[in-house]
Each structure stands twice: as C-alpha cells, then as structure tokens.
C-alpha cells in the first residue's frame, strides 16, 4: 500500500496538517501508530532502541532515556507543545524530514542508526546519511522506519540547544553536541540548512583546538524570522552554548 501513493500515518502530526491545508492528498493512509513492533524503549546490548512509533512525550518521560541519553529526554520535551508530544512520534518526525525538526540533529550527533523494514527485509542507515535533502531521506517509498538505535554513550556529555521560532516552535537553530568520555565531539544541526547535517568541519576545528565556525560552507536557510546572515550567526552562538553545556 505504501508503494502506491500510500502514506504511513504514525501519530499523524506531520502529515495531517499538510492534508488539512490540501497540500497533500494521499490515496491511501496506513495507520502504523498501533503496531506493537514500533513501540517500546529498551536497551539492547550497547544500544538504546526506540521504537519508531514512540511518542515524543514518552521519550521525554522515559527513565531509561533520561539515564542513558538525557539529551533525548530534554530535547523531546522541546518539540512542539504537550499535545503534539502526546501524539507525534520519533519515527514520523524523522521520516517527514522537516529541515527544522528537532530529532534529526539529536540522532545525527548521537550517531544513531535508523532501521527500516521493506518488502525485501530490513535495512539500516546511519542517521548521518539518512537525511538527503529538503524533506528527503534514504527511506524508500515502500519502507517503514521501525527503530532508532542509539549507542549508549556511557560517560558522555550531551546537549541539545534550540532557538525556536515563536509561532511554529520549530527550530531556527537546533544544535546537538555529544562529547564522548574520551573528549571526542560530534556536532549536528537542525534548522540551519535545507537538510539537517553533521558539522564535521566544526568538529575538526574543535579537535585541533581552534575556534569553530558553525555550518561553514553549507547553504543556509533564510525566512521571515531569520535571514541567512543572522541564522549563521545564531548557529555559532548555539554551537558555543552547546559546547559550554558539555564542557
């Protein structure tokens, strides 16, 4: 059904608003929100496994997440508003790939793996490679995200710092930084470019002890609320705030 103009509907909080505005009219909607396979948060070996159908609210409230990936708990609690967090799911948000969504920066910085199920089996893609462009991902039309698997990052420090647009509450800049126990940094941004990205240049500059320039060489989004120049400035401010938070 998904292959033929169908759309998977999880919480529906990315898809239904666009349908209501008649920007989109899928012929078939497949409600995957209740599939038990997509539920649950668990630890599997050295990974935390979050079902694609887990809501933002449940992630924010999960003791397991708070213990192993505190950034995911605090980050999830900054998504949308409480009602949205009660219904919206991590898998739905990632599949939608809004450039200003919060999860992408967090899962890229945390080096998560996205598990997808299709007719021919299961496939895994690193979050860093998953987001291919504006609203575009490595997910095929007939595939469904089933899990997000995140390394436990024992001993790491992590933070998600967000500058919100006050009406939509989307990220103008969302900066996620994970500093592993051995001091290695992973930096990722949402909201800054047409797709979320890992900022390897900034990571390299930081690892060599230089001041980092955030989003160097990236195409930068511009809208009513934040021009290209200002957004780039904010990316730097928020990178510095994130670095201070994991110092």
């Amino acid at each position, binding site marked *: 059904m998904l292959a033929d103009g169908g759309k998977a509907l999880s919480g529906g909080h990315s898809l239904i608003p666009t349908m209501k505005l008649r920007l989109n009219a899928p012929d078939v909607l497949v409600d995957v929100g209740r599939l038990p396979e997509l539920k649950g948060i668990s630890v599997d070996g050295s990974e935390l496994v979050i079902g694609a159908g887990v809501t933002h609210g449940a992630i924010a409230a999960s003791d397991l997440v708070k213990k192993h990936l505190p950034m995911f708990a605090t980050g999830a609690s900054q998504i949308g508003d409480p009602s949205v967090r009660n219904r919206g799911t991590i898998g739905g948000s990632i599949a939608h790939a809004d450039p200003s969504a919060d999860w992408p920066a967090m899962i890229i910085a945390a080096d998560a793996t996205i598990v997808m199920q299709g007719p021919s089996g299961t496939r895994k893609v690193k979050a860093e490679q998953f987001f291919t462009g504006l609203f575009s991902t490595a997910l095929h039309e007939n595939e469904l995200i089933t899990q997000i698997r995140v390394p436990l990052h024992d001993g790491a420090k992590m933070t998600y710092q967000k500058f919100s647009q*006050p009406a939509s509450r989307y990220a103008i800049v969302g900066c996620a930084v994970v500093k592993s126990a051995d001091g290695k940094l992973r930096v990722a941004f949402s909201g800054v470019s047409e797709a979320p990205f890992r900022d390897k240049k900034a990571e390299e500059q930081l690892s060599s002890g230089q001041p980092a320039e955030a989003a160097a060489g990236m195409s930068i989004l511009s809208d*009513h609320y934040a021009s290209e120049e200002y957004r780039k*400035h904010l990316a730097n401010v928020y990178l510095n705030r994130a670095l201070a938070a994991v110092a």
Partner: protein
Amino acid sequence: MSNKFIGQSIKRVEDKRFITGKGRYTDDIVLPGMLHAHFVRSPYAHARVVSIDMTEAKAMPGVIAIYTGDDVADINGVPCGWQVNFRNGETMREPKHPMLIPTGSTAKHAGDAVAIVIAETKAIATDAAESVMVEWDELPAVANPAEALKPGAPKVHEQFPDNTAFDWSLGNPIEEVDAAMAAAAHVTTLEFVNQRVVPNAMEPRAYIGAYDEMADKYTLYTSTQNPHLIRLLMCAFVLGIPEHKVRVVGPDVGGGFGSKIYHYTEEALVTWASKQIGQPVKWTSDRSEAFLLDAHGRDHVTKAEMGFDADGNVMGLRIKTVANMGAYLSTFAPAVPTYLHGTLLQGLYVTPKINIDMTCVFTHTVAVDAYRGAGRPEATYLLERLMDLAALEMGMDPAELRFKNFIPKFDGVNEPGYQTQVALQYDSGDYAPVLERGLEMLGYNDFRAAQQEAAKTNKLLGVGFSTYVEACGIAPSAVVGALGARAGLYESAQVRVQPTGKVSVFTGSHSHGQGHETTFVQVVADKLGIPMEDVELVHGDSDTVAFGMGTYGSRSLAVGGSAIMKSIDKVLEKGAKIAAHKLECAEGDLTYDEGKWTVKGTDKSIGFGDVALTAYVPHVYPAGLEPGLDFSSFYDPANFTYPFGCHIAVVEVDKETGKTTLKRMIAVDDVGNVINPMIVDGQIHGGLAQGIGQAMFEGTIYDENAQLTNGTYMDYCMPRADDLPLFETDRRTTPCPHNPLGVKGAGEAGAIGSTPAVVNAVIDALWSGGHQVKDILMPMTPERVWRAMNN
C-alpha cells in the same frame, strides 16, 4: 441605590456554559436542511477575471448552487459607514466593494471572492470550489501605503489614479507649528512604521442565513459585535430589504477586537442565498481565510517631530502620516486614522502647537479598520516613543520629562474639561498619580542601579514608559455626525419588570467576552436593590432588543450602561407613583432603598415586587396611570470619556542573539469608576497582551506581489503563555463627570498604552549598552534587535 454588587469582583454569570462546553457560537448552530458554503477566491492580489468555468464543479454530487458576480450584480456592495472628505472639500473616494468579482472586473486583494459554492456538506463545497476553474490575468499590485503614493504605482481603482482615498489635517495652522519647531531648543525626529496587525479573534467568523418563506422573513446568525448595525447596513445598503423582515442574531461570539464590527460580504451573501435556494446556508471561515479577509489594524508610515525648549517643555508637534486603507473602505475605516487618531495626538501633555497631516491610501490588501484601540494606539505610540527618545537625546529622565509636561489636574465638575489643540475636550484627568504609582511599583531607583550592573553582562536591561490618554465611550451622535459618521452612536436599553418583580434587561450592547451578563446585572441589581439572580440580561437578538449600536470603542458600560440607568430611573419614577398610591402618601414622602419604598420617618413600606405585581394587576391603582412596568430608553452621551494611565515595561535583551524577554509589565490605569474590578483587570490583561504582541511578535509580511506571506498561526506570531510574565496592575479613579455611572471604559486601555512602553524599554536597554539607536521596527524580532546592536 445599594452598593452590594457595584465595585465587587462578582464571579461571572456566563462562565458556567463556557467552562462546561455549552457555549453556543454560530458554528455550533445546526438548522434543519442547512447547506454549506465555500468561496472561490482570488489567489492574486490584483488580477482580472477572464473567465469562470463551473462545469466540473456543478456536476459534482451534492453541489446545490454556484453563484458568481453576474448573479449578484443587483446587490449593492458593502457600504462604508463614515465619510471623511479631502482637505480641499473634495468628496471621499468610495469605491464599490462588490459581493463577488464579476467576469471582466478585477480582484483587488488576495482572497477577493469570485464565486460562492453551496453544497450539502462543507467537504463537498470545498472540493467543488477547488474545481471551479478561473482564468486570471494577473496585474501588478502594491501593498505598502507609502509605495502606493509614488508615481507609477499600480492603481487599485482605475478611477482614482493616485490611490488616495482622502487626505486630512487637524490642529494649528502649519505655519504656527513650523515657527514653534524653529524656535525649539531641541527637536526629536522619529520616522517609523506602525505595522499592520491581524486581530485574530479565536473564533473565526461564521454566518448562517435562513429564509422563512411563510413569514417572508430572513434570519442571520452572525459572529458579530453589533447585530443591529449589521441589520441596518445589510437591509438598507446592501440587499434592499425592509428591516422588519430581517432578524439578526449574534449568539456567543468568540472575541472581536474590532474585526467583528464590520459588515462583511459573506453575511449578505448567505442571507441572500438562503432565499434563492430555500434552505439555510452556513459559512464558517477557516483561519487561512481569516488572515486574508478579516479587517486588519494599524498600518501607518509616519514622520513625527517634537520640539522642546531648553527646559524640556514641549513646544510643538508636527506629524506627517500615510495610512493604509486597504483595497476598499471598510465600515469605520476612514474614522480610524482621523477622528480616532488625530484627535488624540496631544496626549496628556500641554502642547502649544500641533499639526497633523494624514494621507489615506488604497492598496491591494484587505481593508484596514478598527483593531483594539483603533487609532488611539497609533497616537499613543507616536507620542510616547517621542517622549522616551527625547529624554534619551536630551539626557533627561523620561519620567521627569512627563511630569514636567502633564496637563494639570481637572475634574470636569469644579474645573472645566481640558480643551486640546486637536478638537477634543477631555472630561476629567489627573495624570501625575498614575505615573507616580507606576514608578513606585517599578522601584525606579533600584532599577537604574540594576541596569548599570546588567550593562556589564550579556543581558542588557531596559525600562520603557508610556503615559496615555484615550477617548472612548463613543460618542455624542451630533459630534460624530458632524465628523462624517453615517450612523448615530447612542445606545438603547429596555428594562422590563415582570409581574413577580423579576427583571429582564434588553441591551443593544453585545458581549463577546466582556462579561455584560455579570456587570450590567450588578448595576441593575444594585440600582433596584434586588438580588442579582432576579435580573436577566438579554442581548444579541434584533427581534428581542429594540435597537443597538453594539460593542466597540470601550462603550458598553459608558453608553449602554447609561441607557439602562435611564430606564431604571423611569421604572423607579413610575414605581414611586404606584407605591405612593398603595401607601397613601405623596411621592415626595417616599425614599427608595434596599428594594422597597418607605414613607420617610415611618416603618411603612412596600417592596419592589409588590409594586411590580400592582402594575400588572392594577386593581388598586393611581387614576390615569398606565398598567405595566416596562421602559425603554436611548442614551446619547454628552462627550467621549477619557481614560488614562501609565504602562511601564522592563525587558532583558540577550546581546548575543537579540532576543528580548519581557520581565515585567506594570499597568496603572484610571478608567473612572469600576463596577467589577476582576473583569476590568481581565480587560487590561488582554489589552496588554495584544499591545505587547504588536511590539514583539505580530505583523503582516507582504511580498512584492502583495501576497500575505505569513497568513497562518505557524508564521504569524502571537504571544503565548510562556512569552509573558504575570502583569502587575493597579488603578486610580477619576470618575467620568458626564455619565450616571462615572465610568470611562477599560476594553482598549491595555492595548493603547503598552506597545510603546515595550519598544521604549528595548531602546533603553540598547542605549545602556552603548547602542544609541532611535528606532527598531516592530515587531522587534531577535534579528531586528541584533541588527540594531550590530550595524
């Protein structure tokens, strides 16, 4: 008159239905056989309708009718209710605002409708409207009022090539003002934009037209602020049907803020269509349409100069403003930048010379009309920005500068009202105490010390002041008539005492959040000395309420409440005749108190209920006196009322991001006597939030094709709970000398005073950090504040 209820924070009577989900808004109403309408609208701001193809839409199952401009060519356009002529006497240019744009004509703003589709369900109507194929010839468009005046600008109406609706001036001769400015020791100049904002009442507009063939009578349910005015305009100006054949009902209405005063095309169209089809027709706006079609507010481009002598006394004020009217003249539009704005530009300062020059222009945008405060927020913004900026420029204290220039106290009774340079005579005022109290609440000295400390950190602190006076409780009909109003602005009230002594009050005021069912009843119960439970307020239905001019301009209690007082006086006067007859004494021997007439110096008395029963069972009754106890009155005020106050904002500005956080909002308002302090505080809170919204969050953004590009709640920012602090409010009381309740009005005060206070606070914060900027465009987004610090 007892004082049991007046002045008390009585909990609202109307709340029970709202908190239990039993409120009844227009969209909640379902009539038998009701159909649903959806409009086909112009995607362009300016485009000619080349052709309309309805073949596919008409063939869709469930589609009942589709009407285009050709079908409604006989219906007049929606009228403008206020005429302001050019300075040189030329008549105001008043383009027709057609119901639907006919083939061959041009749509003049995005959203202008070309067809109404009526179907069995809303979904079918929407689908069918999408299938109506309109061929458009897009034309150049202009949204900015200053741009619209430039030579070669796209024309909104071919017949008015300079895009000017009218121009207007007020005050002292310009030569005198020029001379005063030339003699000034310091002139503060500010060029700024008072940006266009969208009212955004939470209930989108909704209408149901229903025609009863047997009675030959129309009923219109409408989300309106003034049912009778809608009936008058729709009957007399648009559809040409007699008023007694039309009933207009304004049920529960989910907020108005001005946007639901006006008569909109959709109201007349659903009413008309219900007769064509013989079934009720409902239309409910979605939010996207609300952004395109509900009248917007503000939209001025201004250059203002204020001259001071060496001691800081104001010498003169010179203002040149271009005001946007939108594509058509909405119901009250011409009054807003003129008589509701220019006349307030003296503020509460002694200003010897003032000249105001307004040019009001057409653009390819939806109409601009009254939005909370209507003209007075723009006037206050102009004056109060100038005052704080002048203080910074002259190195004076902004509070001291105000104290120095305040008009001295006058109560309107022992001292006469204050005659301004700009036509108005203020009723009563005592301006220093509100600022004194505001400073006390702020802790001014401590604040300045904290500000100096903050200047060393990444978070700058700033304080902004605003002291305002406004005119509300509109208005004397003779005055507004002389100024161009095409309607009177009185109010009516009927007090019907039932045989059992229970009282039904019918008012032409209309509550859409203001709490009339409580405050009006408090007044009536106290005046009659009876329990509040014995009084019922009826409003919002033109078949039950004799007449009314509705609720806007903070007029309900000052005008509508006064009309009720007049009717109660008549009830008590007749009641006294009956009581005297029953008690066998002269009327002059009676006193009325606590719900009974008592013969002075005796314990002989008769209760209100007994008198009422006697009036309806007149067995023992004064000769020649009519039975019954039921009186109507009309009240036309002697003057506007003039509330005033002091608003103080404290902000924190993040130097790195430019993000402003409103830390404190202090409001000391003097709205005259207060009937229900809880409700008055609530009105002030809501006004503050809207005023703060304009300063920090709100504003339309049009692109170069006059497309509104932030027409959703995802892009148009309004204050949310986590953007605001708890408000700190207090009051001073200077009664209105010319109405029986001594009330002035509180609905708009919050929105009038707060906006400049917040902007002034950000400017003050920036100066404390060494950035001597004069202006930041509203809304003061983080980027704009950041740029102000980094350019």
